[in-house]
């Protein structure tokens, strides 16, 4: 059930988030900050926030509230307009005997399902589908030697089965997500998800190391080294922007720009990478940057934790490629993203690399399903690569100001066309 990619993106995100919260509560540790997990999950955020406000003694109660809400929230967050068929196509036979239920482990698809329960015991037996303490469906009195059909409309998730008497060992029921016709079974992309997760972890490792080194360099007052490390950190972070953007608070903490605030650089919430950039490249103040770098280290650690708890879905990965290119067009082509270090060309390149990485993961499938689209995408990447080539410098890129009007337009054209191509991916890959 917790396998990455077996549910629509929001469902799994929320479920995992709930689990994450419970896990951290169970450990008895305070969450320093719980990120809003993408736009679709404000309600969860509210519950978590309530939980954080509550004193220790009530934590368990609150955790239960979160737990009992989790199912609803998870369902609530699904975007699915494809609904499971209303009529059951299948019947599931279950026999209650003295030594238990056969089968005691069931797996059915979402929707209305019928279970035919036969009681082979000499006494009245019960059979109920339970979610937590709540009875979803079932019967209290199946007479000895009789059968009773039980219908239940089931949503994707894990359930327990009361089998015989409340004291008997509980059975398990797994309800799998309904996959509408014409939609790819999300499992088919599980290897892609695993490979991408490995890539993200590799970049996160790198980023963590870079920020650690940045803290040290800044504390030592080594301005050139700190500036260089800043550039490296930015590239590593942009490679995995699709993951950063899953967590809005993390994204804000890492990437807020002065232009996000009406009072610009003086706003106290202006922190993260661009605050460090400002201090290193405008104020020439590595010592001032050290404190922000230290804080950034904490944010990166949080991001690792959240990512490994929550994971990512195929759809989020595919959308991530589009978002990388859109963001590069929106803020790097204008030179607005790294306005103090003028590193927008390097960041643009990093984002394109991040998108290219995702296309590489999907390459086998795209070569099968949409070879022409893949060829077009590859062509765009080559075009962008060629346009950026004259701006490559030892260890990086020329400052944004060096970009000619003609090349700017060329990049804009190639990237816009690339974004159009990437917009086809979700349909081509049949990602619901």
């Amino acid at each position: 059930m917790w396998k990455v990619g077996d549910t629509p993106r929001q469902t799994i995100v929320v479920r995992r988030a709930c689990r994450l919260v419970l896990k951290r509560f169970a450990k008895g540790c305070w969450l320093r900050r719980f990120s809003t997990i993408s736009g679709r999950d404000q309600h969860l955020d509210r519950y978590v926030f309530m939980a954080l406000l509550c004193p220790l003694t009530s934590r368990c109660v609150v955790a239960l509230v979160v737990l009992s809400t989790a199912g609803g929230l998870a369902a609530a967050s699904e975007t699915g307009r494809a609904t499971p068929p209303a009529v059951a196509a299948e019947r599931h036979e279950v026999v209650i005997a003295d030594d238990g239920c056969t089968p005691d482990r069931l797996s059915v698809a979402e929707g209305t399902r019928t279970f035919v329960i036969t009681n082979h015991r000499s006494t009245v037996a019960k059979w109920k589908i339970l979610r937590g303490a709540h009875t979803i469906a079932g019967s209290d009195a199946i007479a000895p030697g009789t059968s009773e059909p039980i219908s239940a409309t089931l949503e994707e998730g894990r359930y327990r089965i009361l089998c015989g008497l409340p004291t008997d060992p509980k059975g398990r029921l797994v309800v799998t997500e309904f996959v509408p016709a014409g939609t790819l079974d999300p499992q088919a992309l599980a290897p892609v998800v695993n490979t991408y997760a490995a890539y993200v972890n590799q970049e996160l490792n790198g980023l963590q190391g870079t920020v650690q080194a940045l803290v040290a360099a800044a504390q030592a007052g080594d301005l050139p080294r700190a500036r260089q490390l800043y550039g490296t950190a930015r590239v590593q972070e942009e490679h995995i922007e699709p993951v950063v953007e899953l967590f809005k608070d993390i994204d804000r903490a890492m990437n807020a720009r002065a232009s996000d605030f009406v009072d610009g650089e003086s706003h106290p919430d202006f922190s993260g990478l661009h605050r460090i950039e400002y201090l290193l490249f405008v104020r020439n103040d590595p010592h001032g940057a050290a404190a922000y770098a230290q804080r950034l280290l904490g944010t990166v650690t949080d991001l690792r934790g959240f990512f490994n708890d929550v994971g990512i879905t195929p759809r989020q990965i595919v959308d991530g490629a589009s978002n990388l290119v859109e963001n590069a067009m929106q803020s790097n082509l204008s030179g607005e993203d790294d306005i103090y270090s003028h590193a927008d060309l390097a960041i643009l390149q990093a984002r394109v690399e991040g998108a290219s990485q995702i296309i590489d993961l999907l390459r086998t499938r795209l070569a099968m399903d949409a070879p022409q689209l893949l060829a077009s995408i590859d062509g765009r990447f080559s075009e962008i690569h060629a346009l950026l080539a004259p701006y490559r410098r030892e260890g990086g890129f020329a400052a944004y100001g060096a970009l000619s009007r003609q090349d700017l337009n060329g990049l804009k054209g190639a990237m816009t066309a690339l974004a159009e191509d990437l917009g086809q991916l979700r349909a081509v890959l049949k990602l619901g």
Partner: protein
Amino acid sequence: MTNKMHPPLESGKIFATPEARPADAARRRWMVAGLGALGSGLMAGQVRAADTVCPAAPPDTSRQVYPYVGEHQAGVVTPTQQEATFVAFDVLARDRAGLTRLFTRLTEQIAQLTRGGPAGGPVDVRLPPQESGILGSSPAPDGLTITVAAGASLFDERFGLASKRPAELVPMPAFPNDALERDWCGGDLLLQIRANSRETVLHALRAIIRQTPDTLAARWKMDGFLPAGAIRQGTTPINLFGFKDGTGNASLQDQELMNDLVWTAAGHGEPDWTAGGTYLALRLIRFRVERWDRAPLDDQQADFGRDKASGAPLGKKDEFDDPDFESDPAGRRIPVDSHMRRAEPRSQGRHDAKLVRESYSYSLGLTKAGQLDMGLVFVCFQKSLDSGFISTQTRLNGEPLEEYIQPFGGGYFFVLPGMRRDGEMLGAALLVP
């Protein structure tokens, strides 16, 4: 089709004559009728084919007058005009007397411009002309309304009005997804100028600026427009995301509802002078339209919670169908984080959102990145900012639509009570002891 009330395409009947605009209940039916006309082009085409090749010309609305006198200023519950401009000003007057002079001048201009007709006075060719002349020698009223609202800064120490500040009027704070630009925010006064045509709006604006050189300095200005067809036919305007915007709005003609949602009443912690006014929240919201156009339809519809073509709540047929959230508590049909559901969750019945929206689209030039700079001048009126805009926006914070929108300016303002009779100065209750 549900438009039994109106045969929508009988020539000459489809266009509501604004002077004879039906009461709002009827207007709602008009909207439904219009939906039929727009929403199922095929059927419309068939009817048209059987009807006539040339549709009737739109009626001339240039003589339309919305009286400026009344308990409330015009331009709030006035039927929505097609064109608008929103201009925020810093007040240059230095004291109460200067401010009173400004308001007197504004009152004269509002009276003159909304009535229409020549500016009057002898023509002396040795002098600059009295007015711009862009509407000819005798400007038509053209459905013009000019609505004046005060920002929190008007109630600072300059004019001795601090004790009269409306209780909830503060500078607009930044919400989490905002990237506010100082040059697009706030202002001592906001003028909302609306009319049936763009040139009438501009004419009024130029006249007012001309008449207030020493008392007003423009701070920012945003032009807004709505689709002509929607205004003419009384259908819900489509915004620049391609979605109908304003479907759930309360009826502007329902006075009781407007008293409940919009108009400030005496008491409730508000200074007495505010009775008959209303809070105006204005947000300048950039739409990332190029990016939006590349987003899957599925995402677009899930973000709004509506079908793009029909405007119907997802899973329903008609724009005005009840979204029936109760049958969909888990959000499987209409995601719980869709714009519609967050903005108007209907958990307490119909109007959880205690406000009336009167937004306009805008189109400027290009962003710094060379992309189209288009979006929405979001405008809403409400009796209380806290229970109106702020609570709605708080529900919207974090909505998936945020990926495609960037609020960058605007402000909170208080629409002054109306001029109750001809000759009464705008803001008399505020300024006259």
